[in-house]
Every structure is written in structure tokens, then in C-alpha cells.
């Protein structure tokens, strides 16, 4: 088993437990052990964009120190950390870059972190689970599939922070294919739709939920028109805005047809033939089980 550090992020322990459960199970099935540090903190969710900001880099860098500690004591192979939440991915990766490129900020950050046992070297690599799978090889993923997702039309939804800003993303910002590659490896049919990289509204779901419902409606309607059965997600905030928020969408657009929204790892767990604890569909809103049963993919 290859051991890679795993940074969950707060939401993976609460609203997105299904994302975590399906990921840990599928990783194990692929021979990857995801090692969570015993101690970690919220990454901050958004990267500190102001050029003079030092304080907001502390939280992400602290997590990178946790990964380095795991590496130093031999608990992981190499110095990579896998994240699931696209926002955590973006924040950790960008702060890591700032730490490595800005010597003034690096010094200040080190000076403040006096209670840490080690000084961060800057050498941890932040990757998203999709990147780990791509490195492993799609053929290895296919080899593990026992129940190909035949007849399931999946619309891959990337959102923003998995691909942007340019150079930070897991794939080309204009023509990404990484999620399609994964879904095809699982035997599913992928559907191209116009809004797969359009923002879901992000944090405005807290105080501007009507505007977010508008965006969700546009995105999901496009997926429906393109013929999708389900939409595949890679971020818990996007999943919330396109999944549970459908209740709000229905209020504003009564003719809206709900469409199930699942994490890509849940589809992996389904294709790998793993049990209910791994697929964890009961936490999803709206419930994808009726559609999956109809397709003969779920008993």
C-alpha cells in the first residue's frame, strides 16, 4: 500500500462525510492508504489574495507542517498531501507557493509559529485526489471496476477552484478532461454541457441564497438539456449549492426537474462494487438511489 497524507478539511467531517467515506474506501481498493494527521486545523477555505497579507497564510502552512511531520516520522511515503475539497486544494497549494516564493513572508510566518516543533521546509506537494488517480493510471482504475456504470450519463462539474487561476488547477482551465477520463474509466458515459466550469455561487449561499439558486438553476438545467442522469462533483461547497440548494431552486423555479448530484468518489465506490458504507448515498440530497436503481446499478 502506498501511504499518502490526507487533509480532510472541516466539511469532510460533517456535511460531506459521504465524500470522505467513499474516498477512503476507493483509495484502499486501489492500494492507497490515506493517512490523516492526528492534528490539523481549518485551512481557511479561501486564499489570501491581498499582497501584504501574512496572517491568513498561517492556517494553510500549519497544515503543511503537519504533513511534513508525518513524513519525518516515516508515516507516509514521500511528501505529498491529498485533498478532496477543491477549496482546500486551492488554498493549501497557493499558500505553499507564496511561502516558497516570498522570502519576506516566509520569514514572518516562521517567526510567528514559535510553538511548532519544526520549521516548514516548503517541500510538501499539494495534490487533489483526481491528480493522484491520474498519476496512478486510468487503466488501474478500470482494472478495479466490477460493475461498469453502463448506461449512466454523467455530467462532470468542475466548478472554479479545481481549475483556476491558470497554472494552479489540476488540468487545463479551458479544456479540462480529467473528470471525463475518470468517469470513462468507470465505464460511464460522459456528457458535455456548457456550464461545467461555471461558478456555483460559492460562499454567497450563506446570505444571497436566491442568487445562488439562480446560478444552480442555470447550471443544472444545462446538464439536464445535455441529457445527464447525474452530475459528478469534486467540492463540498459546490455539492451543497447544486444538491441541497435544489430545494431553494424549486421554490424559485417550480417547473425545475431535480437531478441527482453525487461525488465522483461515490460513483467510483459504486463501480468498484463496494458496500453501502462506502457509497454512502443516503447522505445525498436529492436522493440518487431511485435513478441508480432504475439504471440497474443499485439493488
Amino acid at each position: 500500500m502506498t501511504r499518502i497524507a490526507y487533509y480532510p478539511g472541516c466539511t469532510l467531517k460533517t456535511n460531506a462525510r459521504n465524500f470522505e467515506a467513499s474516498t477512503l474506501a476507493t483509495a484502499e481498493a486501489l492500494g492507497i492508504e490515506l493517512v490523516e494527521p492526528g492534528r490539523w486545523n481549518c485551512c481557511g477555505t479561501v486564499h489570501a489574495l491581498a499582497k501584504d497579507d501574512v496572517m491568513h497564510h498561517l492556517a494553510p502552512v500549519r497544515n503543511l507542517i503537519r504533513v511534513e511531520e508525518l513524513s519525518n516520522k516515516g508515516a507516509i511515503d514521500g511528501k505529498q498531501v491529498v485533498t478532496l475539497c477543491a477549496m482546500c486544494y486551492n488554498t493549501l497549494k497557493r499558500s505553499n507557493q507564496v511561502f516558497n516564493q516570498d522570502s519576506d513572508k516566509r520569514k514572518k510566518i516562521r517567526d510567528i509559529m514559535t510553538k511548532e516543533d519544526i520549521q516548514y521546509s516548503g517541500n510538501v506537494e499539494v495534490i487533489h485526489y483526481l491528480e493522484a488517480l491520474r498519476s496512478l493510471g486510468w487503466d488501474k482504475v478500470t482494472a478495479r471496476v466490477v460493475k461498469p456504470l453502463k448506461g449512466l450519463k454523467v455530467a462532470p462539474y468542475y466548478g472554479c477552484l479545481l481549475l483556476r487561476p491558470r497554472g494552479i488547477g489540476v488540468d487545463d482551465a479551458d479544456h479540462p478532461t480529467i473528470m471525463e477520463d475518470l468517469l470513462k474509466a468507470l465505464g460511464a458515459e460522459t456528457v458535455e454541457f456548457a456550464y461545467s466550469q461555471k461558478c456555483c455561487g460559492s460562499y454567497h449561499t450563506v446570505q444571497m441564497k436566491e442568487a445562488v439558486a439562480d446560478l444552480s438553476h442555470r447550471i443544472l438545467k444545462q446538464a439536464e438539456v445535455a441529457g445527464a442522469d447525474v452530475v459528478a462533483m469534486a467540492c463540498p461547497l459546490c455539492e451543497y449549492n447544486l444538491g441541497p440548494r435544489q430545494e431553494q431552486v424549486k421554490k424559485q423555479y417550480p417547473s425545475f426537474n431535480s437531478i441527482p448530484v453525487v461525488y465522483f468518489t461515490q460513483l467510483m465506490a459504486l463501480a468498484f462494487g463496494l458496500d453501502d458504507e462506502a457509497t454512502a448515498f443516503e447522505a445525498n440530497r436529492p436522493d440518487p438511489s431511485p435513478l441508480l436503481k432504475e439504471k440497474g446499478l443499485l439493488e
Partner: protein
Amino acid sequence: MMRLESKDEMVTIFVMGKKHSVPGSLTIMKAMEYTGHQFRRGAGCRGGFCGACATLYRKKGGYKLEGALACQKIVEDGMYIAQIPFSPTDKKTYKLEGLKPDAPTIMEYYPEISRCLACNTCTKACPQDIAVMDYVQASLRGDIEQAAKLSFDCLSCGLCAVRCPAEIVPYNVGMLARRLYSKYMVGPTQHVLNRVKEIEEGKYDSEVKELMTMPLDKLKVKYNTRDKVAE
């Protein structure tokens, strides 16, 4: 009247800006009283357990801001002292009955923990060496057990709350976590339940009655000759 050891070295401290010379073996609290200050607030058990005497200080020539309990910390030369007799906090009212030990419960009462920057200033300020940031972060992701265990030594002295840039009051969060943990995750301890049952059955009624009606001199004798539990 304080006795001075003849070999006790004097040190210089500054109390509210004014310079004083005090014996170097005294705690901050005793040193302030030595200089003639009288504590009307900010003194409690004097034993490092109640959290009343939260104090901030800097050392002359240095920029570091430290937190301590005045009744425990021995003075150092050049200490520049200020007391924090009260820190403004808003403890939320909640009924423990019906609450679940999870993240949504903590978020409902203390949503400001979402503002935590993980800057660790709270941990640095804590006079009890508690990993304050860690228990706040544990609460944010619903790990109530971790939050309860890490915050166990907390005295609610307020130094973390006063310094937090995200305006969180960590000790209120820790208290809720400990209450939820004890009530819902550990459950009631059997020996307490047993004792309550005994009391309700009237096992101690006659003894209590006897004590309540005993004259004061006999009571004093009884107290002084009681069985003492070995340390």
C-alpha cells in the same frame, strides 16, 4: 506582615506603569500587595484554580507579550504588569437537554469559531499550557471528545479571549464541548447515581439531622477530630 528572607534578591517591576522594587521570590500577586496595592477584583482562590487573576506582562527590553496567573507566576526583573480583571464575553444560554454532541450544535451557539485563523495566539497566551487553538479547531469539525479532553485544564481566565484576533471566546466553546462530552458521550458515573439513590432512600437522614442540631462546641470537636483522607 511579610517576612523577608535576608538572602532574597530584590527585583524591579512596573505595576500600572509605576516602578517598584520587590523581593524576587514573590508571585506577581504577592508582589503587588507588597507594594501596597489591594485587590478588589482579580483575586480569587490564590491557588491557580479559579482563573480570576489573569495578568498580561512584558519584560523590559523585549516585545513579547505574555499571559500568566498572578497568584502562580513568580516575578522577574523588568516585568511590566497589567491585570485583566474582566474580559467581556457573551456566554450563550442553552439547555443541555436535547442537544447533540456534534458540529451543528457548536455552530448554532458559537458560529464565530468559523473565523478562527489558526494563528495560535490563544495557545501562546494560555497560562495553563493548553492547546487552545487545537480545541477550537476540534470543535469546528465536530470532534467534541477531542475538544473536551484538550480543554480540560481551562480556568476561564480570559487571556485567550482578550487576544483572539477573530473575536472568539475559546473558553466558552470549551465549556460547551466538555458539557456535551460528559453528558452525552461519557454518561453519568455509576458511583454518583448510587450515592443519589442512597440519599433518596434516606440512608444519611439521621446523620444529617444530628449534625444540624449539634451545638457549636461539639461540632468544632467533631470537625477537628475527623478522619482525614490520606494525601
